[in-house]
């Protein structure tokens, strides 16, 4: 069995290296000096580490404003989606009612929504309701984009929690909401985190809607828009661009590292019930 083991581990290492490389290269490039980046023979490690690219990126106009906007919009959308989806997921996973089947199918089908094609109708709706240039509208849109997947996943997590636990609590005299708060919610926490991470990533990335919903008030734009315009401005400066990309990825990676353990188990539980 020994050579087999070695072969397996070698294969795993190869997969690991290939998967991690783009992320690694992004971070490493952002720390390399301009001459290292321009060098004909790239090095795997920055020979002359520097943080000047981060200074360039952070010093670019409006960086912190965009950062804050992104955080507000994304955080808001994820929170609303979690609450709304949890209610719906609970109804689906724990109750029988007429229309349940069609509702589930509708939620699944909602994932097929052609969002890029809804830019114009969404623009018209926002304009007619006086919601152009407002972060609230963006939040609402991102909430809707993330909701279907959130419901599907949360429902899986809920279904994985044995109903007897909840019944026992009810028998013990808890009210329904107390039972939910004290018994279900703690068990559901990993699931909530895994789902919110997914929602966070989706909303954090979005830029097409920003371009049509935020028009006059440029201080309400978000990071992805900034990252794409950053390339216009610093086209040749790959160090700065990679620093910008790293800064852009950072919040998600931090949230992720913070939640990693729970997300791991959460994904296992959620996925099985899919």
């Amino acid at each position, binding site marked *: 069995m020994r050579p087999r083991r070695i072969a*397996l581990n070698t294969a*795993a290492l190869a*997969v690991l290296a290939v*998967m*991690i490389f*783009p*992320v690694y*290269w992004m971070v490493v*490039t952002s720390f390399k000096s301009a001459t290292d980046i321009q060098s004909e023979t*790239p090095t795997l490690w920055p020979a002359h580490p520097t943080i000047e690219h981060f200074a360039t990126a952070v010093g670019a106009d409006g960086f912190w404003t965009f950062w804050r906007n992104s955080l507000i919009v994304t955080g808001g959308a994820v929170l609303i989606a979690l609450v*709304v*989806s949890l*209610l*719906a997921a609970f*109804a*689906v996973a*724990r*109750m*029988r*009612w007429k229309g349940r089947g069609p*509702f*589930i199918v509708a939620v*699944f*089908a*909602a*994932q*097929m929504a*052609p969002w*890029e*094609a*809804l*830019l*114009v*109708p*969404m623009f018209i*709706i926002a304009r007619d309701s006086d919601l152009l240039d407002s972060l609230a509208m963006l939040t609402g849109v991102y*909430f*809707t984009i993330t*909701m279907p997947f959130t419901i599907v996943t949360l429902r899986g997590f809920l*279904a994985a929690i044995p*109903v007897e636990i909840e*019944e026992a609590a*009810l028998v013990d005299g808890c009210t*329904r909401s107390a039972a939910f708060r004290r018994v279900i919610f703690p068990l559901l926490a990993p699931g909530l985190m895994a789902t919110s991470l997914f929602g966070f990533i989706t909303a954090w*990335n979005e830029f*097409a809607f920003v371009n049509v919903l935020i028009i006059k008030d440029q201080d309400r734009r978000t990071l*992805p828009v900034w990252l*794409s315009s950053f390339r216009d401005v610093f086209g040749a400066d*790959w160090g700065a661009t*990679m620093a910008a*990309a*790293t800064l852009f*990825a950072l919040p*998600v*990676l931090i949230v*992720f590292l913070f939640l990693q353990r729970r997300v791991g188990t959460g994904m*296992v539980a959620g*996925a*099985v019930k*899919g």
Partner: protein
Amino acid sequence: MPTVHAPTREAGADHRPATPPVIRAGGRRISRAWPYLLIAPAVAGGVFLLLYPLLRAALISFQHFRMGELIRGGAAFIGLDNYRELLAAGEFWAVVLRTFVWTAINVVLIVGISTGIALMLVRLGRRMRTALMSVLALVWATPIIAATTVFQWLFQSRLGIVNWLLVRVGFDSFEGYSWFANGTTMFGVLVVLVVWQSVPFAALTLYAGLTTIPVELYESARLDGAGGWQVFRQITFPILRPMFALITSLEVIWVFKCFPQIWVLSQGGPDGATTTLPVYAFKIARALHRYDLGSAVAILTVVILTVALVGNLRRMLKQEGADT
């Protein structure tokens, strides 16, 4: 090998409880209004920010709706003219075909590679497994826009590391090669990007599924003399069939609709070689200001996806709605 089949069904059975258990506490029956109240916010959100815009898009697709109409209003109803124009143009069909090829290539690669990695994960030692899982999750968490930017850098013609590596291992023709100038290579780069981004989710999910298969099943199969491939075909796959179906249909949807990666990297070019349906719809609307035609493309996209997944949806409805 009947011995292998019998327990399979049993094991598969408790994976998908089709209907929810109903909670009764002390004989109190839950008020009938409750479930509807609980889904009300979700339905409201969906109706206002998805269904309504979708209906608006459908309406626009039957109108003469261009830059002037967007600004001044007063769009005229022109029936099916937009659809007629679209279906008569060879370009639309080329885009549809390309979208199918794009989806097929990506989904096959994603599901295949993910299955391989998931099977590998089960067999790895604990430390190696944790390392690989962390890396997968890290890739999964890397924002699309950041990843897309990185791929531009990796495949740069002059200082990109990919060309450097290829030249180093002896492919001298890749010196200064422009990956983004040629339709086929651009398509290839996009496939690599999308597969790279999609594999982690699918692999981790499949791995999670694999861990639920009782070890005894494998052992008995081995005792029966089944080889690795047979074990996969006769035990693993049947048990995980629902999960494979779910992942495949999710990936089909995601890859089919994939937009930001393509738009940022190639804008559907060069020469339309990477224009899939969503990119096509966006291009028509944005570049030509033909919002009417763009909406028609979008509506047709929904129709195509629905048709492609109708079997899946129907099965779902049957399963979920068994006793409503």
